[in-house]
C-alpha cells in the first residue's frame, strides 16, 4: 500500500485517505496552479499507528472514563492533554517509521516545511475544522517533522476538536487524520482570498500582509483589505491596515517582527497584484465548482497557492459556524501576558483595597437606614468582583494550560502532569493561611491550660500574645465562621476557629509536601534544555506566567472571599438587629434589603438522604480522574453543607462537591481528597498536591454515594475510590 502520496498520484477515490486539504492541493496541481512541493501522509498511516501501538483503545478508554456529555470542559482538556502525550511518546512501530522517514528525507532533506492537518472530514461543504486542528510552519529536519506529524494527529483529539465534533454530530470513534507536508515558501507578501463575500454574493474579498500568512490567520497582523466586484473583477474599496509588524521565519517556527519602514508606507499588493491574485482565485473557484477560500503567497513575483477550501460561512449555508466559541477556549501567550498585568497591577490591589475600605466601616454605629444602604452597596461591590472573577480571573487559568502544553511538547515526559511540580510551592494565600493555623495549633499543643480554656469556650482571659496572633489571623483571613457555619446563614464568632485549632493541636499536623528542591531543579533543567538559546527568554517568561496563573487560581477565591465576608458581616449585623427589635418600623427597611439581596431566612437546601435506596444498591468502586498520586484510606467526611466542616476530624477523607479555597483549611487534617467536580487543575487537586495527598476528582455523585463515616480507600494513581474494606 502507498502510505505516502505526492499530489500527482492522488486519485478521486483517495479523498478519504488524504483529507480535504490534501485532495484540494492535488486538484490545484492538476489544474496547473503553482503549489509548493508537497507530500501527503495518508490517514492509513494514522490508522496503522494507532492500531499497532494500542493507542486506538487507549484513547477510547480515556474518553470513556465517564459519559462524555457529563464531562466539564476542564476534564475534556485533561483527556486531550493525556492523549497528546500518548502521541508524543509512543514510538513508531518497526517498518512504518523507516518508510515515513525515508519519504520525508528524500523530498525535503533539511529544507523547512509546513506540517498541516488534513482530516478527511475537514473542509468539506458541511463542516469546517479550520483552526481546530493544528498546523505547524517552518519545521526542519526529519526528526522534527515526524514529531510534528504526531502533534497534528494528536490535535484530532484536542478539547476544542472533541467538543466541536460532538456539537456537529460526528462520531469521534471514526475520526482519522491525514497530514500534508509542504515546503515552506518564505513569501514576502501573503494573504487570503474569499472568492465570494459571505455577506454579499456580488463581491469577493482579498486580505494581504507582508511576510508569512501566519500573522493574518491568527489575527496578530492586521491585513490590508480589498473588496472586489465579482462581475467585473475590479476593486470596489481598499482599506489599508496600520502596517507595523510582519511574521517571518526564525531558526525554529516563525516570529513576529517590526515591519521595515519602507514597507509600512506601501500596501503589500499593487493594483495589478490584486487583479492577478483575484483572477487566479476565481479560476480555482471554476476548477472546484464552488466559491473558495484560498491561501496564497508571493515567492518573489511568483504566486503560489498554499491551500484552497470551500467557503463554509456563506449566508445560504444552513448551519451556523460555531467554531469561534471552541477556538476561544485557548488564549495566546500575549493575551495572557496582558491579562496578568491587569490582574496583578489593577484587579488584585483593587480587591484588597475594596475589602479593606469596607472593613474600616463601623457597622454597629450605623443607623438602620444607613446599614440597609451599606448592605446594598456591599452586595453590588461583591457582585461586581464576582463578575470580574468570571471575566478575567477564570480565563487567566489558561496560563497553566498553555505552559503545560509547551512543557509537554518540548520535554515529552512520561507523566503529562509533571509540569505542575514546577508550579507548586508558590506563596499561595491558602497555604499561608493554613501555615498560620498550624502555628497557632502548635502553641495550643504545648499549652494544656490554653487548650482547656479554648475547649470551654472561655476566651475572655487568653494570653495577650496568643490573642494578638488570633486577631492577626482574623484580620487576614476572617474567623472562618462563615466558611464553617454556612454562607448566607453563617453565625459569626470564633468558636469554629477554636474547634479547628483544637483538632489540629491533638495531632501532629501535616506540612506542605516540601520543596523537593532537587527534583524541581532537575525539571527546570529539562525544560530549559529543550529550547535553543534564542527561545530561552520566552520559555522563562512563560514559566513565570504559569506560576502566577497557578497561584492565582487559588488566591483569587481568597480575595473574593474577603469581600464576601464584609457583605456577610453587614448582613449579620442586620439580622442581629431584626432579632433584637422585632416589630419596629426601622426593621422593615432591613427586612426588605435582606430579601432584595437574597439573604432572607430561607434554610439552605440539603440533598435528601438516599439511605433507603443505598441499602439495595451500593457502590463499591467509583472511577474518577487521578489528580494527586498516592494511596490512602480513612473514614469519609462528606461535606453536604458548610457546617459539616466543623466536624472534620484528623485522618478523614474530605469528600465534597467542589473544593473552594475558602474551605481548604481542613485539608491539613485530611488523609485524602475526593471531589465531584472534575479536573487536574481545580482547587481540590491543587491544594492536595501542595500537601502531597492522594486526590481524585470528577466522580459524579461522589457526595451521595459516599456517606460520612464510610471507610474508603483513595487510589490517587488510578483515580479509584473503593468503599468498604480493601484488606490494605
Amino acid at each position, binding site marked *: 500500500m502507498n502510505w505516502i502520496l505526492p499530489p500527482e498520484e492522488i486519485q478521486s477515490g483517495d479523498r478519504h485517505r488524504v483529507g480535504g486539504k490534501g485532495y484540494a492541493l492535488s486538484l490545484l496541481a492538476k489544474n496547473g496552479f503553482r503549489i509548493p512541493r508537497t507530500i501527503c501522509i495518508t490517514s492509513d498511516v494514522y490508522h496503522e499507528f494507532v492500531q499497532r*501501538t494500542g*493507542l*486506538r*483503545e*487507549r484513547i477510547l*478508554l480515556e474518553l470513556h472514563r465517564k459519559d462524555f456529555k457529563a464531562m466539564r470542559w476542564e476534564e475534556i482538556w485533561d483527556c486531550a492533554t493525556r492523549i497528546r502525550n500518548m502521541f508524543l511518546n509512543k514510538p513508531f512501530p518497526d517498518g512504518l517509521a523507516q518508510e515515513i522517514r525515508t519519504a520525508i528525507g528524500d523530498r525535503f532533506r533539511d529544507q523547512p516545511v509546513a506540517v498541516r492537518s488534513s482530516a478527511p472530514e475537514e473542509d468539506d461543504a458541511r463542516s469546517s475544522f479550520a483552526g481546530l486542528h493544528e498546523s505547524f510552519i517552518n519545521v526542519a529536519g526529519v526528526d522534527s517533522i515526524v514529531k510534528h506529524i504526531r502533534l497534528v494527529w494528536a490535535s484530532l483529539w484536542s478539547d476544542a476538536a472533541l467538543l466541536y465534533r460532538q456539537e456537529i454530530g460526528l462520531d469521534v470513534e471514526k475520526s482519522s487524520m491525514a497530514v500534508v507536508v509542504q515546503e515552506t515558501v518564505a513569501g514576502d507578501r501573503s494573504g487570503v482570498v474569499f472568492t465570494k463575500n459571505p455577506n454579499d454574493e456580488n463581491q469577493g474579498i482579498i486580505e494581504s500582509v507582508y511576510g508569512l500568512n501566519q500573522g493574518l490567520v491568527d489575527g496578530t497582523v492586521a491585513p490590508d483589505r480589498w473588496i472586489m466586484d465579482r462581475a467585473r473583477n475590479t476593486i470596489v474599496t481598499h482599506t489599508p491596515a496600520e502596517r507595523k509588524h510582519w511574521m517571518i521565519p526564525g531558526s525554529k517556527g516563525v516570529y513576529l517582527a517590526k515591519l521595515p519602514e519602507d514597507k509600512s508606507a506601501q500596501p503589500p499588493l499593487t493594483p495589478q497584484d490584486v487583479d492577478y491574485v483575484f483572477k487566479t482565485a476565481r479560476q480555482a473557484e471554476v476548477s472546484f465548482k464552488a466559491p473558495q477560500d484560498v491561501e496564497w503567497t508571493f515567492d518573489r513575483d511568483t504566486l503560489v497557492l498554499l491551500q484552497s477550501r470551500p467557503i463554509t460561512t456563506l449566508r445560504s449555508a444552513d448551519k451556523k459556524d460555531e467554531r469561534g466559541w471552541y477556538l476561544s477556549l485557548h488564549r495566546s501567550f500575549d493575551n495572557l501576558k496582558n491579562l496578568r498585568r491587569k490582574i496583578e497591577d489593577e484587579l488584585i490591589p483593587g480587591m484588597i483595597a475594596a475589602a479593606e475600605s469596607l472593613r474600616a466601616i463601623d457597622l454597629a454605629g450605623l443607623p438602620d437606614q444607613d446599614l440597609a444602604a451599606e448592605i446594598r452597596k456591599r452586595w453590588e461591590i461583591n457582585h461586581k468582583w464576582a463578575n470580574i472573577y468570571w471575566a478575567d480571573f477564570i480565563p487567566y487559568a489558561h496560563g497553566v494550560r498553555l505552559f503545560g502544553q509547551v512543557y509537554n511538547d518540548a520535554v515529552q515526559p512520561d507523566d503529562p502532569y509533571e509540569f505542575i511540580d514546577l508550579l507548586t510551592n508558590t506563596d499561595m494565600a491558602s497555604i499561608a493561611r493554613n501555615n498560620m493555623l498550624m502555628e497557632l495549633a502548635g502553641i495550643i499543643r504545648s499549652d494544656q491550660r490554653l487548650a482547656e480554656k479554648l475547649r470551654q469556650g472561655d476566651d475572655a482571659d487568653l494570653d495577650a500574645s496568643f490573642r494578638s496572633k488570633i486577631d492577626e489571623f482574623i484580620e487576614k483571613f476572617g474567623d472562618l465562621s462563615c466558611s464553617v457555619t454556612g454562607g448566607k446563614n453563617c453565625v459569626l464568632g470564633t468558636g469554629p476557629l477554636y474547634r479547628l485549632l483544637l483538632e489540629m493541636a491533638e495531632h501532629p499536623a501535616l506540612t506542605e509536601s516540601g520543596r523537593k528542591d532537587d527534583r524541581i531543579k532537575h525539571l527546570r533543567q529539562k525544560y530549559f534544555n529543550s529550547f535553543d538559546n534564542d527561545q530561552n527568554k520566552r520559555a522563562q517568561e512563560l514559566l513565570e506566567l504559569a506560576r502566577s496563573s497557578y497561584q492565582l487560581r487559588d488566591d483569587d477565591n481568597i480575595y473574593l472571599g474577603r469581600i464576601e465576608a464584609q457583605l456577610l458581616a453587614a448582613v449579620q449585623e442586620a439580622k442581629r438587629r431584626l432579632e433584637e427589635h422585632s416589630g419596629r418600623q426601622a426593621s422593615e427597611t432591613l427586612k426588605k434589603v435582606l430579601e432584595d439581596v437574597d439573604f432572607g431566612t430561607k434554610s439552605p437546601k440539603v440533598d435528601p438522604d438516599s439511605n433507603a435506596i443505598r441499602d439495595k444498591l451500593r457502590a463499591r468502586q467509583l472511577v474518577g480522574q487521578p489528580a494527586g498520586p498516592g494511596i490512602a484510606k480513612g473514614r469519609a467526611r462528606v461535606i453536604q453543607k458548610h457546617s459539616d466542616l466543623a466536624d472534620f476530624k484528623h485522618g478523614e477523607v474530605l469528600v465534597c462537591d467542589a473544593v473552594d479555597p475558602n474551605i481548604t483549611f481542613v485539608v491539613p487534617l485530611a488523609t485524602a481528597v475526593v471531589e465531584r467536580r472534575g479536573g487536574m487543575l481545580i482547587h481540590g487537586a491543587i491544594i492536595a498536591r501542595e500537601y502531597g495527598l492522594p486526590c481524585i476528582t470528577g466522580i459524579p455523585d461522589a457526595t451521595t454515594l459516599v456517606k460520612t463515616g464510610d471507610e474508603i480507600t483513595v487510589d490517587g494513581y488510578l483515580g*479509584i475510590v473503593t468503599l468498604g474494606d480493601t*484488606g490494605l
Partner: protein
Amino acid sequence: MMDTNEKFRMRLAELFRTQNLAALSTHQAGQPYASLVAFYAADDLKHIYFVTPKTTRKYANITADNRVAVMVNSSTNKASDFHQAISVTAVGKVEEVVGSDRDLILEQYLAKHPYLEEFVRSPSCALLKVAVNSYYMVKNFQNVMELHLEP
C-alpha cells in the same frame, strides 16, 4: 480422535493468543468470587499473568488464600458456541511478581494489551502470576480433557 499432548498444547496456545479476557475465581471464608481479568499466558503454558489494583476484592481474596481457577473461552454469544467454542479452566496458585522479572513480564503483557499501559504501571497495581497445576479443556459440548503439568 483424542488430542495428543502436543495438539492439546497447540489448542491452548491458540486460545490464549486469541482471547484477551479470562474469568478468575478466588474465594475467602468459603465464599467464591469471580472477576474478569486481562491475561497473558507464557509460551510454555506454565504461567498465566494478570494485573489488578491492590484495593480490589480479588486481591484481598488472593492474599488470604492463593489458590485460584482461571477460565478462558472462545464463545461468541451464539447458539453455535455449544458445538464450536472451547473453554479452558486452569487451576493453580498465584503469587505477586516482583523484582527484575516484573519489567520483563510487563513488557510481554503490554505487547498483548498495549492500551493498559497506564493501568499496569500504576504503583497501586500488582502483577500476579498463576503457576498452573492443571488444565481442563471442554470442547464439542461435553468433551473434557485434562493436562496435569509436571511440578
